[in-house]
């Protein structure tokens, strides 16, 4: 008798599509199990009752029709789904990929917005730059401004001062820097008024070199803000600045 191929154990990986419902006439005169009565209502007596409910024949289970949810390529049950499978998969992955990219970008935007809210506020940032009207500063004069909590020296240099500073020999300087490297427009020298020795504020138009003199420990700076005499090691710091137009100076 042919037994279900499934029971062949290790030796039968090759299962063929046979469903076995075997009827055989082995014993003579075998009586049928059902009574030979007419007009009997045959109801499927459920043999498997469980606390959850009654299970009817599994062949009565009807898989619902999902045509409304299917993609157009697979609505026809008489067409193999293999042909369109690559296209459908590519579409799904493309859509998912694109959405992921957009989603990541959106997430990044939200996160940076929240994080950047913790950075400097506008009023603080406003203090980071200073705009100065240059026409108000006469020649030879040094004006001090408060910028980022430090004194800022803006000096309108005379021709004589410019010539002197440009003529200075590098070998004389402790911190060699040519005047050209410290200014954008030689007429204006803009430096931070913080002595590079220990941080005091130098006095303008003082000292032996026609520049600045720091009274704390006696550092002499020239009209380019370079250290000439005294304990300070470096020249006065030149901040970042631009001249947006003839008359204006923007520092920071």
């Amino acid at each position, binding site marked *: 008798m042919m037994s279900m191929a499934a029971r062949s154990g290790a030796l*039968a*990986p090759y299962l063929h*599509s046979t469903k076995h419902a075997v*009827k055989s006439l082995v014993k003579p005169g075998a009586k049928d199990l*059902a*009574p030979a009565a007419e007009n009997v209502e045959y109801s499927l007596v459920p043999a498997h009752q469980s606390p959850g409910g009654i299970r009817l*024949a599994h062949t009565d289970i009807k898989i619902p029709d999902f045509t409304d949810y299917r993609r157009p390529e697979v609505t*026809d*049950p008489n*067409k193999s789904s293999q042909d369109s499978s690559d296209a459908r998969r590519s579409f799904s992955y493309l859509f998912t990929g694109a959405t992921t990219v957009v989603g990541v970008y959106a997430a990044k935007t939200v996160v940076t917005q929240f994080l950047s809210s913790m950075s400097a506020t506008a009023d603080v940032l406003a203090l980071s730059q200073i705009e100065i009207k240059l026409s108000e500063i006469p020649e030879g004069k040094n004006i001090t401004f408060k910028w980022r909590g430090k004194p800022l020296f803006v000096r309108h240099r005379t021709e004589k001062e410019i010539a002197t500073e440009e003529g200075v020999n590098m070998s004389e300087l402790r911190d060699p820097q040519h005047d050209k490297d410290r200014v954008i427009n030689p007429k204006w020298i803009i430096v931070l008024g913080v002595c590079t020795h220990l941080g005091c504020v130098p006095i303008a138009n003082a000292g032996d070199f026609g520049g600045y003199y720091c009274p704390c420990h006696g550092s002499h700076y020239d009209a380019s803000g370079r250290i000439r005499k005294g304990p300070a090691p470096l020249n006065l710091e030149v901040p970042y600045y631009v001249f947006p137009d003839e008359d204006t100076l923007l520092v920071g």
Partner: protein
Amino acid sequence: MAASVCRVGSTVGRALAKTRSPILLSLRRGQASVSYAQSLVGAPETRLTTLDNGLKVASEETGHATCTVGLWISAGSRYESEKNNGTGFFLEHMAFKGTKKYPQTALEQQVESMGAHLSAYTSREHTAYYMKTLAKDLPKAVELLSEVVQSCSLNEAEIEQQRGVVLRELEEVEGNLQEVCLDLLHATAFQGTALGQSVLGPSRNARTLTRQDLVDYINSHYKAPRMVLSAAGGVNHEELVGLAKSHFSGVSFEYEGDAVPVLSPCRFTGSEIRMRDDALPLAHIAVAVEGASAASPDIVPLMVANSIIGSYDLTYGGGKHLSSRLARLAVEENLCHSFQAFHSSYSDTGLLGIYFVCDKHQIEDMMHWSQNAWMNLCTTVTESDVARGKNALKASLVGQLNGTTPLCDDIGRHILNYGRRIPLAEWDARIDAVTPRMVRDICSKYIYDKCPAVAAVGPCEQLPDYNRMRSAMYWLRF
């Protein structure tokens, strides 16, 4: 030497001498074993003849004293519609209830007096009626088979009686959870198509099928070009052809209204169905992808791939030394009670899958490792795995043909699927041609990143969500 063999049995000796089987020549005194290579070459050729009406007659003469002869028909639940699903199955019940020439008792008496076994089965694409009998009773057997198939009496009273039997069988099959699970797998995988229908049919049809439905079914599907009269054992092909001519020449080959039933392709849908019942002790789960058709060239590598995964149940004694990796894991991690890799192939599609039975707390792990086994096949299967799989497959193919009935069934199904019998030597050559690269490529083609169909019966709460199972069909590392 020949004389000593002939002493074994006059019939056997005569038959062997007649066919001049190489098996005879290689027998040594006292030894009856044959090597694998010899059994491949020594297998007698299957002879095939086609009658005028298209009916094929095939036989293999093995020299046994018994034989199995039967009729294999290309008819099954796939040819049925929703309204008449279950007709083939019902007809199978009616087949042995009497024919025009032999009413039931007479038929039974004929069969019993020969000491024969008369059986039948119906599957989704094939129906078979066959008889196991002594070789000398072949003519009677063929006559009875022709009666059963061509002139079944289909008497009304019997039909009513058989309704109850069919309904009770439907009820009984609910206890066979493997059947239920695999039926549900087909129902969901091939939903909306003819392959999704079960062979048994719904209970409503069992109650309402009429004699006319059965007659219509016979008229539409029992046609000569779709039939094979197959025999194996101590049969003579010429004799068989003669018998076929005399009994089966009347089988029609024309369809009414030229309505030739053509099988349309069946769409596979990646989907799942869960029949949850926490009162059952074990969960039965099947997961499958669309596989290859019976005649596809990919069949052999897929069979090798399934051999690599293999099967297992609690009765296996190998323990952690079993060769299949999944089986080793099943033992070491106590993953399941049994599993098997299967491949059901039909004429234009198939189902390639793994079926397992496990405790309700092991489902997730077992599913994970089963899909892992698939991923291994697609990506890293090694030379030694493939060699082992090939050997196991060859052994099982040869070992299955251990008797006239499996042999006859093999012949019948082959003729229906392929139009010819594929000899063992050809299977052997095709199996030898499989390389690991081929297994990887072909498995990737069918398994990798494909939507599976899943069916679960029993306490299946732990079965992962479908999207998780779908995600396990590919590896990010690749």
